[in-house]
């Protein structure tokens, strides 16, 4: 009994001692922070970022204090404290790499846990993700676009790459604001934040809601499209089996179920890497086959004029295949060195442009007037079977990226703690997903399956929504937000580009919308006649 009381007293004394030392350290840090501020105004000593570091120490010290009094055992407190610090730090977005390792007592542990919780991706991994988004399934329709557009189609492929690279960069530029020192600081985190900031004075939440809805529609439709495409390709590859397209779609969904367990962008980047490799193999196979028939190339068939009736659809295919802007804010936010973002954008778009242009031109030259809507229909059956299998693999591997992005958008907008959103948080305190959160993710996967199976003419419907949401999110909104937020800093040629992109994007969107509606009405009439 006496030893028990003595141990309790000694515990309390040691706790008190540590709390005193923590508090004094916190006070000192706070003092330094304040001094740091003043120092900045006096000399050019401490920049804003360094002040941030000191403030971080201060808060870390306070948190350590709180947790030590709550928890008798120290180990759990340290870990969770580090975790909480890393999470609470998200509001202090800095350009450097995560929490500085030397700042706190359990700095090493905190760093590790921050890395486990939200690991940062390298520029290469961000590049794979962007490539996954811009080199999609629509590359198979490009030779058909050249059939109807000739040289203009080729020019459009290059031009669209340039424009989309530019809009991606200005979108990310909207995330940053200049502080008093002229340094760029990341004040906004996502597309929704940018939209809210633009509509700030009168409608503080309207812009965010519009962008949310557009993003969710675009992402979910992309996921559904991948399920439809994989079902269709498998059905066409094995017509002798009694398995219908619906059955193949269900099998594909069963294979995609593990996507519900995705936690961070690093895992998604691995899938994107495999997807890019599959795409590369497809390109190599088709180009090699076309090169083997190089003697028969019809150079004189490439037209200078346009087929006015059919080309607008091709415009849609070419232009909307470069849509990666939805993923850019979260990609850039998770990069270890965000300064490499511009370089990554340039290289991915150049690579996409070259590969797409080469593929479209070479395939068109091989088959000229006989080029079909999907180039795999032109291939001989053995190569077609192999290419089909790789296409199915590509479709399945492309699914995680839009799925993860959709889950992120939904969680941020609908599932937040503290009454910020309608539903409670999907994650537990230790960062793991709750069971019902997992069931919601599985529900989203099943929803994409049901839409893929029961909605007829899905490709046309996707063209319809894509011309609205895709064009909006890729051309109209970035230029609009760029003009609104950074008006004072723009040079005249930036303004000119933004306005031009807005106008061109509007025209593409309207023409795509009209043609998709026409196509849908015709398909509906044909069905009714049948």
């Amino acid at each position, binding site marked *: 009994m006496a030893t028990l009381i003595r141990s309790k007293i000694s515990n309390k004394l040691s706790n008190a001692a540590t709390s005193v030392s923590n508090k004094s350290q916190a006070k000192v840090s706070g003092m330094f922070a304040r001094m740091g501020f003043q120092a900045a105004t006096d000399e050019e000593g401490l920049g804003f970022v360094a002040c941030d570091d000191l403030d971080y120490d201060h808060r870390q010290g306070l*948190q350590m204090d709180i947790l030590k009094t709550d928890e008798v055992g120290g180990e759990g407190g340290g870990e969770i404290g580090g975790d*909480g610090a890393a999470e609470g730090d998200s509001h202090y977005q800095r350009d450097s790499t995560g929490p500085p390792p030397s700042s706190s007592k359990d700095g090493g542990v905190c760093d590790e846990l921050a890395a486990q919780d939200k690991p940062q991706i390298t520029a290469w991994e961000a590049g794979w993700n962007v490539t996954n988004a811009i080199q999609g399934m629509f590359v198979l329709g490009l030779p058909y676009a050249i059939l109807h557009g000739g040289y203009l189609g080729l020019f459009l492929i290059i031009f669209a790459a340039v424009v989309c690279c530019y809009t991606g960069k200005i979108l990310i530029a909207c995330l940053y604001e200049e502080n008093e020192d002229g340094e760029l600081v990341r004040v906004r985190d996502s597309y929704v934040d940018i939209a809210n900031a633009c509509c700030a004075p009168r409608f503080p939440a309207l812009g965010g809601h519009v962008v949310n809805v557009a993003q969710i529609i675009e992402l979910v439709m992309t996921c559904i499209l991948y399920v439809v495409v994989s079902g269709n390709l498998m059905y066409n590859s094995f017509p002798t089996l009694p398995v219908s397209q619906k*059955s193949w779609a*269900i099998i594909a969904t069963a294979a995609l*179920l593990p996507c519900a367990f995705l936690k961070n962008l690093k895992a998604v980047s691995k899938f994107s890497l495999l997807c890019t490799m599959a795409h590369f193999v497809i390109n190599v196979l088709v180009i090699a086959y076309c090169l083997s028939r190089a003697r028969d190339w019809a150079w004189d068939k490439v037209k200078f004029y346009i087929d006015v009736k059919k080309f607008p659809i091709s415009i849609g295919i070419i232009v909307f295949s470069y849509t990666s802007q939805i993923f850019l804010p979260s990609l850039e936010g998770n990069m270890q060195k965000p300064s490499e973002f511009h370089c990554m954008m340039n290289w991915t778009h150049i690579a996409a442009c070259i590969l797409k242009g080469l593929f479209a031109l070479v395939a068109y030259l091989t088959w000229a007037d006989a080029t079909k809507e999907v180039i795999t229909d032109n291939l001989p059956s053995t190569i077609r079977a192999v290419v089909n299998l790789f296409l199915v693999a590509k479709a399945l591997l492309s699914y995680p990226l839009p799925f993860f992005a959709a889950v992120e958008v939904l969680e941020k907008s609908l599932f937040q703690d503290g009454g910020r959103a309608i539903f409670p948080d999907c994650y537990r305190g230790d960062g793991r997903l709750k069971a019902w959160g997992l069931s919601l993710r*599985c529900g989203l996967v099943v929803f994409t399956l049901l839409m893929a*199976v029961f909605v007829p003419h899905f490709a046309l419907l996707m063209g319809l929504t894509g011309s609205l949401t895709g064009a909006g999110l890729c051309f109209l909104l970035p230029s609009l937000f760029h003009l609104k937020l950074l008006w004072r800093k723009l040079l005249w040629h930036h303004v000119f580009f933004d306005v031009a992109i807005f106008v061109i994007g509007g025209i593409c969107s309207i023409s795509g919308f009209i043609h998709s509606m026409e196509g849908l009405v015709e398909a509906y009439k044909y069905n009714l006649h049948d």
Partner: protein
Amino acid sequence: MPRSETFPRVQRHAQIGSKPSIDSISAIKCEFDFQLKTANTRMRAGCGLTYTCAVAAFAMWQSDVMMKLIGCRTLDSARLQRLAFVFFSILSRILAEQEVENLSGLSPNPDKDIFVVRENGTTCLMAEFAVRFLVPYDVLALNGIDLITEQASIALPRGAEIEGKCGNAEAEVQISWINDAYVFRLFFVKEVHDSSKGNDIWKISKVQLLYDTSEKTHFINAYNPGKHTASSHRLSALVTPAGQSYECQAPQTLTLISTDHQKGVTVSLSDIQIQPFDITSDFTFSPAYKCITDQREQLEELLPLILGIVLGLLIVITLSVYHLHLKMTAHQPQLPRDRSLYKNILQF
């Protein structure tokens, strides 16, 4: 009532060839009311007629039993028998006309028709299908020298004349319309491999189509009009185990070679149910043997359901395993990730 209704124009009558069933049934004179169907004066030969006779015979047998039960007077005399037969044939034709019309109205396929051959008072061959013929024929071109091949699409009209012959190992049915301008024949044969093992099968052995290109409704400006015959060569189709009827919804196509310069006539049968042998009861098909295409389609339709159930089970198992895993490994206190909720844990 016009004479044609009482005495049919068609001389060939399935019952005339075979022993009339009247002999076994005594003539019955009874009074009952019926409403004459005056609105419908269309002659429905062939199909209606065989059905009529069948219904008449059946009606007579039934009424025989009924009358015996309620005790009508029965008269035995040949003259009365004949009068009664005529009387009943009128009545039953009227009823059967209604029945045949209803039958065609029930089927959703307008081309589908039923063909029955009766012998000895029972049905011996029943065939139900929709058929379309694609017959190529020559037409003189505008320059007056060349010959162009045109295609005529012919369907079986209602009320075609049916003839048939049944046997133990062979059966045939002959359908003719437009005054024998077109005659369609199906020949069935039953093969007995090993009577003890029950490997008997029946199948179509020959299909024949006789057509006359001088017939104006389908053949427009045919060159050298005349009668031609298109037959099959070494055909073995619709193979079915003996004692069962053949059923197939999916369309089946046969090509017949015509005597008109060896042109190919395409016969496309769909919505088929045929039984040429071993019909046990009147107008009833034996258990059906489904064709392979139909079986595949059934499997194709069943598979998504099975896979969907498997997927659902998979999801449920995954969720419960994850839930249990969380329960097992959670021994640390949950701290909220949002700093604003720290106030809940501040206890001092």
